[in-house]
Protein backbone atom coordinates (compact mmCIF):
# COMPACT_ATOMS: atom_id res chain seq x y z
CA UNK A 1 0.00 0.00 0.00
CA UNK A 2 1.66 3.23 -1.00
CA UNK A 3 1.82 5.35 2.10
CA UNK A 4 2.52 8.43 0.07
CA UNK A 5 -1.24 8.95 -0.41
CA UNK A 6 -1.74 12.21 1.42
CA UNK A 7 -4.16 11.98 4.31
CA UNK A 8 -6.17 14.91 2.93
CA UNK A 9 -7.81 12.98 0.15
CA UNK A 10 -9.50 9.79 1.18
CA UNK A 11 -7.31 6.66 1.19
CA UNK A 12 -6.10 6.47 -2.38
CA UNK A 13 -7.25 2.94 -3.07
CA UNK A 14 -10.72 3.62 -1.68
CA UNK A 15 -13.58 3.13 -4.10
CA UNK A 16 -17.29 2.70 -3.63
CA UNK A 17 -19.54 -0.02 -4.88
CA UNK A 18 -22.27 1.87 -6.74
CA UNK A 19 -25.00 -0.76 -6.42
CA UNK A 20 -24.43 -1.01 -2.66
CA UNK A 21 -24.74 2.75 -2.25
CA UNK A 22 -28.04 2.90 -4.12
CA UNK A 23 -29.54 0.09 -2.07
CA UNK A 24 -28.31 1.79 1.15
CA UNK A 25 -29.88 5.05 0.01
CA UNK A 26 -33.17 3.29 -0.66
CA UNK A 27 -33.27 1.83 2.83
CA UNK A 28 -32.48 5.28 4.26
CA UNK A 29 -35.31 6.75 2.20
CA UNK A 30 -37.66 4.08 3.49
CA UNK A 31 -36.59 4.79 7.06
CA UNK A 32 -37.01 8.53 6.60
CA UNK A 33 -40.53 8.16 5.15
CA UNK A 34 -41.73 5.89 7.93
CA UNK A 35 -40.21 8.16 10.58
CA UNK A 36 -41.88 11.29 9.19
CA UNK A 37 -45.25 9.50 8.83
CA UNK A 38 -45.08 8.31 12.44
CA UNK A 39 -44.11 11.78 13.68
CA UNK A 40 -46.91 13.39 11.65
CA UNK A 41 -49.56 11.01 12.97
CA UNK A 42 -48.34 11.48 16.56
CA UNK A 43 -48.31 15.26 16.27
CA UNK A 44 -51.76 15.25 14.70
CA UNK A 45 -53.38 13.05 17.31
CA UNK A 46 -51.66 14.81 20.21
CA UNK A 47 -53.00 18.04 18.78
CA UNK A 48 -49.64 19.77 19.01
CA UNK A 49 -49.80 23.20 17.55
CA UNK A 50 -47.17 25.57 16.36
CA UNK A 51 -43.56 24.91 17.13
CA UNK A 52 -43.86 21.89 19.42
CA UNK A 53 -45.05 19.97 16.37
CA UNK A 54 -41.82 20.80 14.56
CA UNK A 55 -39.87 20.08 17.74
CA UNK A 56 -41.36 16.61 17.76
CA UNK A 57 -40.38 16.18 14.11
CA UNK A 58 -36.75 17.15 14.63
CA UNK A 59 -36.65 15.04 17.79
CA UNK A 60 -37.71 12.01 15.80
CA UNK A 61 -35.14 12.89 13.10
CA UNK A 62 -32.51 12.84 15.84
CA UNK A 63 -33.71 9.48 17.16
CA UNK A 64 -33.74 8.13 13.62
CA UNK A 65 -30.16 9.30 13.04
CA UNK A 66 -29.19 7.69 16.36
CA UNK A 67 -30.64 4.36 15.28
CA UNK A 68 -28.95 4.58 11.90
CA UNK A 69 -25.57 5.21 13.47
CA UNK A 70 -26.02 2.34 15.89
CA UNK A 71 -26.92 0.12 12.95
CA UNK A 72 -23.81 1.28 11.13
CA UNK A 73 -21.82 0.60 14.32
CA UNK A 74 -20.47 4.10 14.27
CA UNK A 75 -18.48 3.88 11.03
CA UNK A 76 -20.99 5.67 8.84
CA UNK A 77 -18.36 6.39 6.18
CA UNK A 78 -18.13 2.69 5.34
CA UNK A 79 -21.65 2.86 3.99
CA UNK A 80 -22.07 6.38 2.67
CA UNK A 81 -19.76 8.85 0.91
CA UNK A 82 -20.42 11.61 3.44
CA UNK A 83 -21.90 11.98 6.94
CA UNK A 84 -25.55 12.61 6.20
CA UNK A 85 -27.41 10.66 8.84
CA UNK A 86 -29.23 13.84 9.92
CA UNK A 87 -29.71 15.63 6.69
CA UNK A 88 -30.84 12.71 4.55
CA UNK A 89 -33.83 13.90 2.42
CA UNK A 90 -35.14 15.93 5.34
CA UNK A 91 -37.14 18.06 2.91
CA UNK A 92 -39.22 15.09 1.79
CA UNK A 93 -39.68 14.06 5.38
CA UNK A 94 -40.87 17.52 6.35
CA UNK A 95 -43.55 17.61 3.67
CA UNK A 96 -44.89 14.19 4.59
CA UNK A 97 -44.78 15.17 8.26
CA UNK A 98 -46.77 18.37 7.66
CA UNK A 99 -49.33 16.56 5.53
CA UNK A 100 -50.03 13.86 8.08
CA UNK A 101 -49.90 16.34 10.93
CA UNK A 102 -52.54 18.52 9.31
CA UNK A 103 -54.57 15.50 8.26
CA UNK A 104 -54.78 13.92 11.70
CA UNK A 105 -55.10 17.26 13.40
CA UNK A 106 -58.05 17.95 11.14
CA UNK A 107 -59.57 14.55 11.73
CA UNK A 108 -59.25 14.68 15.50
CA UNK A 109 -59.48 18.30 16.52
CA UNK A 110 -61.30 20.17 13.82
CA UNK A 111 -64.12 17.77 13.13
Amino acid at each position, binding site marked *: *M*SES*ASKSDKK*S*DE*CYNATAITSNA*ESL*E*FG*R*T*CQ*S*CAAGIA*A*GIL*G*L*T*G*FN*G*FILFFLSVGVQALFWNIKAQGNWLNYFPERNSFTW*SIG*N*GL*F*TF*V*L*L*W*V*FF*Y*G*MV*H*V*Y
Partner: protein
Amino acid sequence: MTDLLLDPAIRTWVFLPIVVITFLIGVLRHYISLLWMNKKKIDLENIADGQYLLRARLLRENGRFLPKSSFNSRRQYLVAEETGYLSKAMNRPAKAANPMADPTQMTEMLKGNMMNMIPMIVVGGWINWTFSGFVTTRVPFPLTLKFKAMLQRGVDLVSLDSAWVSSASWYFLCMFGLRSIYTLVLGSENAADQSKGMEDQMTGVATNPQADPKAAFKAEWEALQVQQHQFAL
Protein backbone atom coordinates in the same frame (compact mmCIF):
# COMPACT_ATOMS: atom_id res chain seq x y z
CA MET B 1 -59.12 33.37 17.46
CA THR B 2 -62.63 32.39 16.58
CA ASP B 3 -63.04 28.69 16.90
CA LEU B 4 -65.12 27.45 14.01
CA LEU B 5 -67.00 24.24 14.13
CA LEU B 6 -66.98 22.68 10.68
CA ASP B 7 -69.83 20.58 9.47
CA PRO B 8 -68.62 16.92 9.51
CA ALA B 9 -70.02 16.55 6.01
CA ILE B 10 -67.03 18.59 4.82
CA ARG B 11 -64.72 15.95 6.24
CA THR B 12 -66.38 13.03 4.52
CA TRP B 13 -67.07 14.77 1.20
CA VAL B 14 -64.12 17.09 0.79
CA PHE B 15 -61.31 16.45 3.20
CA LEU B 16 -60.93 12.73 2.65
CA PRO B 17 -61.79 12.56 -1.07
CA ILE B 18 -59.08 15.11 -1.92
CA VAL B 19 -56.44 12.94 -0.32
CA VAL B 20 -57.74 9.84 -2.10
CA ILE B 21 -57.99 11.67 -5.44
CA THR B 22 -54.44 13.01 -5.21
CA PHE B 23 -53.06 9.60 -4.38
CA LEU B 24 -54.92 7.79 -7.13
CA ILE B 25 -53.91 10.36 -9.71
CA GLY B 26 -50.30 9.77 -8.78
CA VAL B 27 -50.71 6.01 -9.20
CA LEU B 28 -52.54 6.53 -12.49
CA ARG B 29 -49.79 8.77 -13.81
CA HIS B 30 -47.20 6.18 -12.85
CA TYR B 31 -48.84 3.44 -14.87
CA ILE B 32 -49.67 5.72 -17.83
CA SER B 33 -46.04 6.81 -18.07
CA LEU B 34 -45.01 3.16 -18.01
CA LEU B 35 -47.30 2.52 -20.97
CA TRP B 36 -46.25 5.61 -22.84
CA MET B 37 -42.53 5.12 -22.36
CA ASN B 38 -42.29 3.40 -25.73
CA LYS B 39 -39.18 1.32 -26.29
CA LYS B 40 -36.95 4.17 -27.37
CA LYS B 41 -35.15 3.01 -30.52
CA ILE B 42 -31.56 3.81 -29.49
CA ASP B 43 -29.38 3.35 -32.48
CA LEU B 44 -26.03 1.67 -32.12
CA GLU B 45 -24.05 4.82 -32.38
CA ASN B 46 -25.65 6.34 -29.30
CA ILE B 47 -24.92 3.18 -27.37
CA ALA B 48 -21.29 3.43 -28.40
CA ASP B 49 -21.23 7.09 -27.33
CA GLY B 50 -22.69 6.20 -23.95
CA GLN B 51 -20.26 3.31 -23.51
CA TYR B 52 -17.20 5.43 -24.36
CA LEU B 53 -18.34 8.16 -21.97
CA LEU B 54 -18.76 5.57 -19.25
CA ARG B 55 -15.37 4.12 -20.19
CA ALA B 56 -13.65 7.51 -19.88
CA ARG B 57 -15.21 8.04 -16.45
CA LEU B 58 -14.22 4.54 -15.32
CA LEU B 59 -10.68 5.11 -16.52
CA ARG B 60 -10.43 8.30 -14.50
CA GLU B 61 -11.95 6.76 -11.40
CA ASN B 62 -10.26 3.35 -11.35
CA GLY B 63 -7.20 4.12 -13.42
CA ARG B 64 -5.14 4.18 -10.26
CA PHE B 65 -5.42 0.39 -10.01
CA LEU B 66 -3.48 -0.10 -13.21
CA PRO B 67 0.25 0.40 -13.64
CA LYS B 68 1.33 3.63 -15.31
CA SER B 69 2.11 2.07 -18.68
CA SER B 70 -1.31 0.47 -19.18
CA PHE B 71 -3.10 3.60 -17.91
CA ASN B 72 -1.25 5.77 -20.41
CA SER B 73 -1.83 3.37 -23.28
CA ARG B 74 -5.58 3.41 -22.56
CA ARG B 75 -5.68 7.15 -22.19
CA GLN B 76 -3.81 7.49 -25.47
CA TYR B 77 -6.33 5.20 -27.14
CA LEU B 78 -9.17 7.45 -26.04
CA VAL B 79 -7.74 10.92 -26.49
CA ALA B 80 -5.19 10.54 -29.28
CA GLU B 81 -5.41 13.42 -31.76
CA GLU B 82 -7.01 11.80 -34.82
CA THR B 83 -7.62 8.20 -33.82
CA GLY B 84 -8.93 8.66 -30.26
CA TYR B 85 -12.67 8.08 -30.00
CA LEU B 86 -13.17 11.03 -27.70
CA SER B 87 -11.34 13.49 -29.91
CA LYS B 88 -13.18 12.21 -32.99
CA ALA B 89 -16.53 12.45 -31.24
CA MET B 90 -15.70 15.86 -29.83
CA ASN B 91 -15.31 17.60 -33.12
CA ARG B 92 -17.87 15.48 -34.88
CA PRO B 93 -20.12 17.75 -36.96
CA ALA B 94 -23.11 18.54 -34.77
CA LYS B 95 -25.70 16.24 -36.26
CA ALA B 96 -29.15 17.75 -36.24
CA ALA B 97 -29.75 16.82 -32.65
CA ASN B 98 -31.24 20.19 -31.81
CA PRO B 99 -34.85 19.69 -30.76
CA MET B 100 -36.35 22.07 -33.29
CA ALA B 101 -35.45 20.12 -36.37
CA ASP B 102 -35.70 16.61 -35.06
CA PRO B 103 -39.43 15.62 -34.92
CA THR B 104 -38.99 12.62 -32.64
CA GLN B 105 -37.15 14.86 -30.18
CA MET B 106 -40.11 17.27 -30.22
CA THR B 107 -42.77 14.67 -29.45
CA GLU B 108 -40.54 13.30 -26.66
CA MET B 109 -40.33 16.70 -24.97
CA LEU B 110 -44.04 17.39 -25.49
CA LYS B 111 -44.97 14.06 -24.02
CA GLY B 112 -42.73 14.71 -21.04
CA ASN B 113 -44.44 18.01 -20.25
CA MET B 114 -47.88 16.67 -20.98
CA MET B 115 -47.41 13.95 -18.45
CA ASN B 116 -46.26 16.35 -15.75
CA MET B 117 -47.81 19.77 -15.87
CA ILE B 118 -51.22 19.38 -17.29
CA PRO B 119 -52.73 16.84 -14.85
CA MET B 120 -51.59 18.97 -11.92
CA ILE B 121 -53.19 22.16 -13.23
CA VAL B 122 -56.37 20.49 -14.42
CA VAL B 123 -57.06 18.66 -11.17
CA GLY B 124 -56.08 21.72 -9.09
CA GLY B 125 -58.47 23.88 -11.06
CA TRP B 126 -61.26 21.31 -10.83
CA ILE B 127 -60.89 20.96 -7.07
CA ASN B 128 -60.75 24.70 -6.70
CA TRP B 129 -63.89 25.04 -8.75
CA THR B 130 -65.92 22.29 -7.10
CA PHE B 131 -64.89 22.75 -3.48
CA SER B 132 -64.68 26.53 -3.39
CA GLY B 133 -66.33 28.84 -0.95
CA PHE B 134 -65.52 27.15 2.34
CA VAL B 135 -62.60 26.18 4.51
CA THR B 136 -61.69 22.53 4.84
CA THR B 137 -59.41 22.36 7.84
CA ARG B 138 -57.24 24.28 10.23
CA VAL B 139 -53.50 24.09 10.04
CA PRO B 140 -52.05 23.48 13.51
CA PHE B 141 -49.19 25.90 13.07
CA PRO B 142 -49.71 29.71 12.96
CA LEU B 143 -49.54 31.27 9.50
CA THR B 144 -48.78 34.89 8.67
CA LEU B 145 -51.41 37.09 7.03
CA LYS B 146 -49.62 36.91 3.73
CA PHE B 147 -50.64 33.25 3.49
CA LYS B 148 -54.25 34.16 4.20
CA ALA B 149 -54.85 35.58 0.76
CA MET B 150 -53.31 32.59 -0.94
CA LEU B 151 -54.73 29.83 1.21
CA GLN B 152 -58.24 31.15 1.62
CA ARG B 153 -59.03 31.93 -1.99
CA GLY B 154 -62.80 32.12 -2.43
CA VAL B 155 -63.38 32.73 1.29
CA ASP B 156 -63.01 36.44 1.94
CA LEU B 157 -63.75 36.70 5.63
CA VAL B 158 -61.43 39.32 7.01
CA SER B 159 -61.67 38.22 10.63
CA LEU B 160 -60.95 34.58 9.92
CA ASP B 161 -57.62 33.39 11.30
CA SER B 162 -55.23 32.56 8.49
CA ALA B 163 -54.74 29.07 9.86
CA TRP B 164 -57.91 27.97 8.18
CA VAL B 165 -57.20 26.75 4.66
CA SER B 166 -59.32 26.20 1.57
CA SER B 167 -59.56 22.91 -0.34
CA ALA B 168 -57.18 24.02 -3.12
CA SER B 169 -54.35 24.55 -0.67
CA TRP B 170 -55.12 21.24 0.99
CA TYR B 171 -54.77 19.63 -2.43
CA PHE B 172 -51.34 21.20 -2.92
CA LEU B 173 -50.34 20.12 0.57
CA CYS B 174 -51.33 16.56 -0.36
CA MET B 175 -49.44 16.77 -3.66
CA PHE B 176 -46.12 17.46 -1.94
CA GLY B 177 -46.77 15.33 1.10
CA LEU B 178 -47.63 12.13 -0.75
CA ARG B 179 -44.45 12.16 -2.77
CA SER B 180 -42.45 9.92 -0.47
CA ILE B 181 -45.41 7.68 0.22
CA TYR B 182 -45.47 6.80 -3.47
CA THR B 183 -42.03 5.26 -3.06
CA LEU B 184 -43.48 3.07 -0.33
CA VAL B 185 -46.32 1.91 -2.50
CA LEU B 186 -44.93 1.84 -6.01
CA GLY B 187 -41.32 0.87 -5.40
CA SER B 188 -38.24 3.01 -5.67
CA GLU B 189 -38.08 4.57 -9.15
CA ASN B 190 -41.70 5.44 -9.91
CA ALA B 191 -42.97 8.25 -12.07
CA ALA B 192 -45.95 9.05 -9.88
CA ASP B 193 -45.03 12.60 -9.16
CA GLN B 194 -43.75 15.11 -11.59
CA SER B 195 -41.44 16.97 -9.25
CA LYS B 196 -38.86 14.21 -9.44
CA GLY B 197 -38.83 14.68 -13.22
CA MET B 198 -38.30 18.42 -12.83
CA GLU B 199 -35.44 17.84 -10.44
CA ASP B 200 -33.69 15.56 -12.93
CA GLN B 201 -34.03 18.16 -15.66
CA MET B 202 -32.43 20.78 -13.49
CA THR B 203 -29.56 18.70 -12.21
CA GLY B 204 -28.81 17.43 -15.74
CA VAL B 205 -28.85 13.84 -14.57
CA ALA B 206 -31.38 12.84 -17.16
CA THR B 207 -29.57 14.30 -20.13
CA ASN B 208 -28.79 11.18 -22.13
CA PRO B 209 -25.95 11.26 -24.63
CA GLN B 210 -28.16 12.07 -27.57
CA ALA B 211 -29.11 15.41 -26.10
CA ASP B 212 -25.67 17.02 -26.23
CA PRO B 213 -22.91 14.46 -26.95
CA LYS B 214 -20.34 17.01 -27.95
CA ALA B 215 -20.26 18.84 -24.62
CA ALA B 216 -20.06 15.59 -22.67
CA PHE B 217 -17.19 14.34 -24.83
CA LYS B 218 -15.35 17.61 -24.49
CA ALA B 219 -15.62 17.46 -20.70
CA GLU B 220 -14.35 13.88 -20.58
CA TRP B 221 -11.55 14.66 -23.02
CA GLU B 222 -10.25 17.54 -20.87
CA ALA B 223 -10.63 15.60 -17.64
CA LEU B 224 -8.58 12.74 -19.05
CA GLN B 225 -5.89 15.05 -20.36
CA VAL B 226 -5.41 16.66 -16.99
CA GLN B 227 -5.47 13.42 -14.99
CA GLN B 228 -2.02 12.56 -13.64
CA HIS B 229 -1.73 8.92 -12.77
CA GLN B 230 -0.57 7.67 -9.37
CA PHE B 231 -0.45 3.92 -8.98
CA ALA B 232 -2.48 3.28 -5.83
CA LEU B 233 -1.35 -0.23 -4.94
